[in-house]
């Protein structure tokens, strides 16, 4: 068991900088998830830690030992990939025992170790089967067993759940977390799935284009994203982003026409600033609007948001960020701050996700499943501004 320290790690492929001056410390026995979109440099980072890829600059430490120049085998790490790479002709027992056989352990010692691991993973009843006779989750656990059986110093995992269906994935998330707690071993885990990151990590490190964006516990990353990228990437239903400007006379944020950010880094999903829905709003057949929707709205803001807005590079280029659960819908007009129209309702059982047209923006609102509004219904929209975020539209940094 060991802590892991990455010090100013840089890795280039030709002219592409895959990992850019990355520093990160993982405590002994900590579960850290490195999360980011495809091409962020996560796997390259992990491969540098494993010794499969030599960094161009920087060092990797296990505890106080510099392992940067050590071979993968000498580092004593366990590496689990998304394709489990089990030997198809061997039984589960033999698959798990394989790394021990290579070390020349006694038969009884091997037997004891394999059984101990199999018990921890709840696969002791499957030891005589071959991989083809196992379900995806069982194969996954067998692969874990093979990695665990020699008690490595650290566990490195590269998207191990990607090939499982969603129910199994949910189940394996809990399982992996339980296993990590039981083994009490350092886990460094890479994924592009923000749900996996939030649910499993003691801490999350968010990576984009080779650059570390933010490191922190899940709730902190979710509630206090450091920049627009993190805000957009983390959260099951994407945060709403509304381009706006600060009107000092009114002490309010007002809707601004869309503008494009200067910085090269595009937000990960679809560009939240892209003017994806132009033109007049449309409604289901037979429904008419009483008045044309205006694209001008304004919300009066607290001292905190005002101070944040004033600290922006350009107070005309701000982005108000608000999560779907921090918007309230009501049918009584005049009660809320803004007026909109129901575009689409998505009932998900435990919640409804409403797409509401607000001017030319579509925003997502999470409500209890009991709120039922028809498409085309007119609604009042109120932002819980105490939980809103404000981003600098130029630097993409969080202001509030």
């Amino acid at each position, binding site marked *: 068991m060991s802590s892991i320290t990455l010090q100013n790690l840089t890795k280039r492929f030709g002219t592409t900088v895959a990992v850019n001056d990355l520093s990160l410390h993982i405590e002994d026995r900590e579960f850290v998830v490195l999360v980011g979109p495809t091409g962020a440099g996560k796997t390259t980072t992990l491969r540098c830690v494993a010794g499969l890829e030599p960094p161009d600059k920087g060092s990797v430490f296990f505890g106080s030992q510099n392992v940067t120049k050590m071979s993968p085998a000498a580092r004593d790490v366990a590496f689990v990939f998304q394709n489990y790479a089990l030997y198809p002709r061997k039984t589960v027992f033999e698959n798990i025992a394989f790394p021990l056989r290579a070390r020349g352990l006694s038969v009884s010692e091997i037997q004891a170790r394999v059984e101990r691991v199999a018990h921890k993973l709840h696969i002791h009843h499957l030891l005589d089967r071959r991989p083809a006779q196992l379900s995806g989750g069982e194969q996954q656990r067998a692969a874990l067993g093979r990695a665990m059986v020699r008690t490595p110093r650290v566990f490195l995992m590269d998207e191990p759940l990607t090939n499982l269906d969603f129910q199994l994935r*949910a189940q394996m998330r*809990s399982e992996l977390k339980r296993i990590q707690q039981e083994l009490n071993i350092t886990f460094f885990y890479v994924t592009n799935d923000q749900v996996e990151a*939030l649910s499993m990590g003691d801490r999350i490190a968010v990576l984009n284009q080779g650059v570390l964006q933010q490191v922190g516990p899940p*709730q902190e990353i979710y509630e206090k994203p450091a920049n627009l990228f993190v805000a957009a990437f983390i*959260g099951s239903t994407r945060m709403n982003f509304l381009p706006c400007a600060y009107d000092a006379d009114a002490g309010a944020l007002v809707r601004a026409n869309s503008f494009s950010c200067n910085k090269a880094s595009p937000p990960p999903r679809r560009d939240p600033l892209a003017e994806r829905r132009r033109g007049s709003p449309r409604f289901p*057949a037979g429904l008419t609007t009483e008045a044309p929707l205006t694209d001008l709205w304004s919300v009066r803001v607290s001292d905190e948001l005002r101070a944040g807005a004033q600290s922006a590079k350009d107070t005309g280029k701000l982005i108000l960020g608000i*999560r779907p659960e921090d918007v309230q819908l009501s049918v009584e007009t005049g009660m809320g701050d803004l007026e909109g129209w129901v575009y689409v309702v998505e009932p998900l*059982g435990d919640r409804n996700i409403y797409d509401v047209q607000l001017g030319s923006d579509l925003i997502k609102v999470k409500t209890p499943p009991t709120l039922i509004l028809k498409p085309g219904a007119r609604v009042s929209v109120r932002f819980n501004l105490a939980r809103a975020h404000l981003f600098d539209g130029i630097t993409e940094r969080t202001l509030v």
Partner: protein
Amino acid sequence: MAEVRIERLVKIFPGGLRAVDEVNLKITDGEFLVLLGPSGCGKTTTLRCVAGLERQTSGDIWIGDRIVNALSPGERDIAFVFQFYALYPHLNAYENIAFPLRATKVPRDEIDRRVKEVADILRIHPILRKRPRSLGSGEQQRVALGRAIIRRPQVFLMDEPLTNLDAALRSDMRVELKHLQQELAATVLYVTHDQTEAMSMGHRIAIMNLGVLQQVGTPLEVYQNPATLFVARFIGNPPMNLIPVRRVGDVLEGTDSPLRLVLGSPMADPIKQRQRAVPSTSSGQVSSPWAGGHELVLGARAEDIRLTGCGNPGDLTAIVATREPLGDETLYSVALNGRLILITTDPTARFKPGDKVELHFDRSRIRVFDAATEKALI
């Protein structure tokens, strides 16, 4: 647009595989109906029978007021959409949309008028002159949608059209497709294995397994009142918690766990009614599944179980196994005899793995299934 009726549809493949087994289903005019199930359940075969791409072994397909069994796919007046982005790369967006009309010799100005109309609905005017490869994938999808709707078919049949998209685009396309369906008041039969897609888009969901229709209902109905254990396991993320129990008097007791759930009034009443109903059936042999000792399965959604600390005795005492923060809520699991019970709480709850907790089941929301027939009793 028209309604579609599937009556006693059976499809047996050479070799004897019964892919579709006596399916009855009506899709009303203007309805978005999702046919949902795991791979191999018969949903795509059903869809292909409606499309005319597959000839059923028996049963009838109605589109509008005619039986279309003997009609070729081309004569059925349907639009079949496999995937939205199979566009012709050498044609621009305008020509891609116009393509189905070019083949039917519609006059030029009529084609132009209809392409513009479709572009208006989809808001893709600015990109009509561009070729697919210079379009973003969201724009490509909309062009593909445009090509599907320009013919004004009676019915849209869609087979997992969003499957190959990345998660963010898929969620955007769900919204766009649903909105488009509302606007056109189109009849849509949509096949998917993704329950989130089914829940979020369908007016009603028809769930199939092993060729047999399990349940048809609105998203909320199938979520809250699954008719079978299969539906309970398939719908919802996370799926419903299912715990083996037996009934002893007014108590549900865990068969292999220390769960003890004293039934309050909302639950006890329907049970008593059912007990009364059973003896009145003709056969004297019938033993009520509610009889004491009968194997039952208790079903409870993760959000219908409340967690408290130990001071507040509940239906089950357990140890927190894992805690998964998801941002807007937190998912806890407790171990119960080798299986995990999942509970969602708001993100402010602060239990830790190893904590002793009490579980409280919401009596008005729990379901009970017969373990033998796998059917819901309440």
